């Protein structure tokens, strides 16, 4: 009864939050604070460690799943970039196809393989006789001439590049209408050369070289490349022009095949002049 009475008294007396006795409580808390702080921190850490240990298996599985997701997303990203690049290239091919639709019919073909030999320059395209591809059809890109079809199989065809020793083509200089033959250069790898030019033939650096249409395979006016150097022949009577092809033969992924010539492209100036041995 007495104790109950004391407690009821204390309860009544200590009611408000800011009662004077809380000073005692504050002193007590302050004095044990240096001990309770680290203790609480340690207990917290311990609890976190225990939680981590308990959830390690789950986290490991989650980590594996996230890694898989990252790998999948990276693959998808690369694939998306590939599709994007392919889309750009195909758009370019399509634009070219539409722009030249009055001159010829074109078929886009993927490049599926290259010549395994270092001596020959050919490539294999993924269209064949089943798709209307025939021997001697011209292969090009919007940048310029690639070569001609030399062998046709039902689903693939082999293309002889201009860079091959046997890939010579009749050509002319756009500005001067100078005619000549363009073939692979033996001393400038990856370049072409216009040969048998008289020493006074009107050709200079940066001149644009096009197909001449002579020879019956390549239509007239297709871009081949740009003259980068003029070299005199050892006999002093002739010279040759080194040509940088417009087509990057090492990076061909899709090409266009001229399946039908509808109208021969006519240049404004058709007054050909021949020089040298052509």
């Amino acid at each position, binding site marked *: 009864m007495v104790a109950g009475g004391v407690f009821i008294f204390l309860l009544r007396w200590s009611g408000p939050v800011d009662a004077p006795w809380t000073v005692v409580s504050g002193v007590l808390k302050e004095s044990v604070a240096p001990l309770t702080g680290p203790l609480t921190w340690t207990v917290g850490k311990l609890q976190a460690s225990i939680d981590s240990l308990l959830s390690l298996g789950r986290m490991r599985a989650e980590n594996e799943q996230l890694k898989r997701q990252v790998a999948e997303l990276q693959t998808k990203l690369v694939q998306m970039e590939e599709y994007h690049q392919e889309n750009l290239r195909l758009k370019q091919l399509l634009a070219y196809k539409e722009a030249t639709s009055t001159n010829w019919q074109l078929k886009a073909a993927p490049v599926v393989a290259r010549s*395994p030999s270092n001596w020959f320059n050919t490539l294999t395209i993924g269209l064949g006789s089943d798709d209307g591809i025939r021997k001697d059809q011209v292969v090009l890109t919007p940048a310029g001439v690639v070569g001609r079809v030399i062998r046709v199989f039902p689903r693939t065809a082999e293309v002889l590049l201009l860079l091959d020793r046997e890939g010579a083509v009749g050509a002319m200089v756009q500005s001067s209408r100078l005619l000549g033959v363009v073939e692979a250069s033996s001393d400038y790898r990856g370049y072409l050369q216009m040969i048998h030019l008289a020493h006074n033939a009107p050709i200079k650096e940066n001149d644009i070289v096009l197909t001449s249409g002579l020879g019956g395979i390549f239509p007239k006016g297709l871009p081949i490349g740009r003259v980068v150097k003029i070299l005199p022949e050892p006999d002093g009577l002739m010279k040759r022009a080194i040509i940088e092809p417009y087509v990057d033969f090492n990076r061909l992924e899709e090409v266009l095949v001229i399946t039908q010539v509808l109208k021969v492209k006519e240049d404004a100036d058709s007054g050909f002049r021949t020089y040298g041995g052509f």
Partner: protein
Amino acid sequence: MPTVAFVLMGVFSLILEATVLQAFQVAGVKPDLLLIFLCFYALSRGTWRGALLGAIYGLMEDIYLSRFLGMNGLIKMLVGYGVGWGRDKLNLENPLVPVIVIWLATVGSGLLFLLLAPLGGLYYPWGLSLVKTIFPISLYNASLAFLGQSLKREGKEWLANRRNLGG
């Protein structure tokens, strides 16, 4: 390694040369993997078997290229025979020997090509072809052979160490 495995490796190499190796050109040339495998085979099996695999590899190339059938067959057969001749005469314990043999075989095969090309109506300038094509391919082939030899040696040592540890 059995001969059939070498034939299959040849087929695989041909596919690689026609596709992936285009992206690994150095100085405008790609390595001749078939020639490298042929040399390793001929050095371990001798003249006749070297010549046989050389003929098989060469014909495979000719059929794939569909140009001048028999040219690569003849060249690789002669190279296979020639390299096989060195089996009993060279110190094959020295890891540099196969590398030098492959370098020489590549140069020899290039010269044979230049010699035979006019038979097919193709005329390549000798000097330029040597400098711009044959030497780069020979160096590329020799480098790959050296790399292959080193990997093989390291692999053997690693296996031996593992066996010792296991024992």
